[in-house]
């Protein structure tokens, strides 16, 4: 198992004892959130997205695909002991900086040198180089998004009311299957219209190409055991078809 895929259900973590309502724990976190979102807005994969973005007219040197999957793969691939050492946006900062180094946009040395500079002079300004056309694309992306909905696929394998079991695929770099649901029995409560394409193939995990997505309900007692679960509790998850198999296959 990969621990990050199994967060749901971990015990002995202590109380969610302080209700921290702030979005950003430090001012610098806003900047890495912003950088990530701009990268999503100028990602080359958007030329195939549902909204027709005029990507070829956006002046940028960014020539890669960057989606939620990129960020998630980074976090899910961290050594678990490392994963828990870092706060949410610290992980983003590590993953995104490493991406730009790995893809040759910046060198580790220039990043280290400039980091030292800003450490010594925290108020020294950023370069002044606005890019109005990119800014427009960022605003367009935020207003129109990047749905995975594609043409309706043909055969729907399951119907509302069907009993299904969750598969137990090989642990891969990335998944959209919450670990605590593996091998559990559930009931289809909704078949979402159309078919969806996830940002990337997850290989042996099973996401690849167009798939139907289902809302599936699970009794808490079926997941955690009748003696170990709270009463009268149902968990719903949205699951890609690859993660489901019919009850009679068990």
């Amino acid at each position, binding site marked *: 198992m990969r621990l990050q895929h199994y967060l749901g259900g971990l015990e002995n*973590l202590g109380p*969610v004892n302080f209700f921290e*309502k702030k979005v*950003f724990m430090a001012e*610098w976190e806003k900047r890495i959130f*912003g*950088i990530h979102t701009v990268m999503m807005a100028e990602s080359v994969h958007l030329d195939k997205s549902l909204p027709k973005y005029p990507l070829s007219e956006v002046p940028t040197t960014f020539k890669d695909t960057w989606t939620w999957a990129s960020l998630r793969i980074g976090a899910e691939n961290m050594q678990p002991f490392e994963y828990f050492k870092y706060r949410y946006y610290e992980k983003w900062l590590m993953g995104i900086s490493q991406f730009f180094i790995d893809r040759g946009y910046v060198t580790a040395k220039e990043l280290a040198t400039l980091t030292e500079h*800003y450490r010594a002079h925290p108020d020294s300004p*950023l370069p002044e180089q606005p890019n109005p056309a990119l800014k427009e694309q960022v605003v367009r992306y935020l207003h129109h998004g990047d*749905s995975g909905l594609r043409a309706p696929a043909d055969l729907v394998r399951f119907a509302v009311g069907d009993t299904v079991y969750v598969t137990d695929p090989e642990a891969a770099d990335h998944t959209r299957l919450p670990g605590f649901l593996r091998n559990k029995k559930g009931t289809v409560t909704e078949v979402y219209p159309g078919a969806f394409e996830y940002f990337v193939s997850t290989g042996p995990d099973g996401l690849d190409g167009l798939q139907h997505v289902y809302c599936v309900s699970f009794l808490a007692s079926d997941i955690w055991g009748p003696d170990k679960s709270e009463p009268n509790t149902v968990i719903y998850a949205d699951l890609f078809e690859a993660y489901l198999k019919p009850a009679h296959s068990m």
Partner: protein
Amino acid sequence: MSSLFKYDKDREAASAAKVRALEALLIKKGVLGSDSVDAVLRHFETVASPFNGARIVARAWVDAEYKARLLEDTPKAIAELQFPGMTGAEGEHMKAVANSATVHNLIICTLCSCYSWPVLGLPPYWYKDPVFRSRGVREPRAVLREFGVTIPEGKEVKVWDSSAQIRWFVIPERPAHSEHLNEEQLAALVTPEAMMGVALVPSPPPCLRHPNVYLIRRICRDADARATRFATA
């Protein structure tokens, strides 16, 4: 917040310097403009904010037919209100679920931090914290009690794990003693936490149970204070 995630100044200063260096390099190399990151942040201060969700909830409270449409086809019902950007990033496929006398809903994302951006803005820290993500599906009632919400055993708890394209949000129950409040005043009572199901919308305090304009203004001021959570200071 757990003190586990409150760091010393040195660690924060190191991250602040690194992110500034990264942004500076990306501007120089043409990956970003110097106005790009600010454009993102402005969107969450002006367009995608929990004010939208609060107004949607208030409309559902005062108009039962609207509420039915919202539950039946959430994007279509939201579109009626003509707020900008409502099908934008992380809101391409939103769905509302309603709390009632028999059901309490809790929204979670155990794999990451999926959240309905257009109607709720960005997720607060507690939503992203591994402790909430771990315990929310295993012992939602215990977690809710820690948040000050006790759900009687006879009331069903539904936990929605956002693991594919749908971004869920909750229509909380309208509080008692709020009959005299108008839609705008009702919206001022609704918090992001209530729309994620970890809080209830409290009744207006006794001193505010009368249509007294000065006191209502105070409710609105409190709502403004909540909106400042976007700031870190």
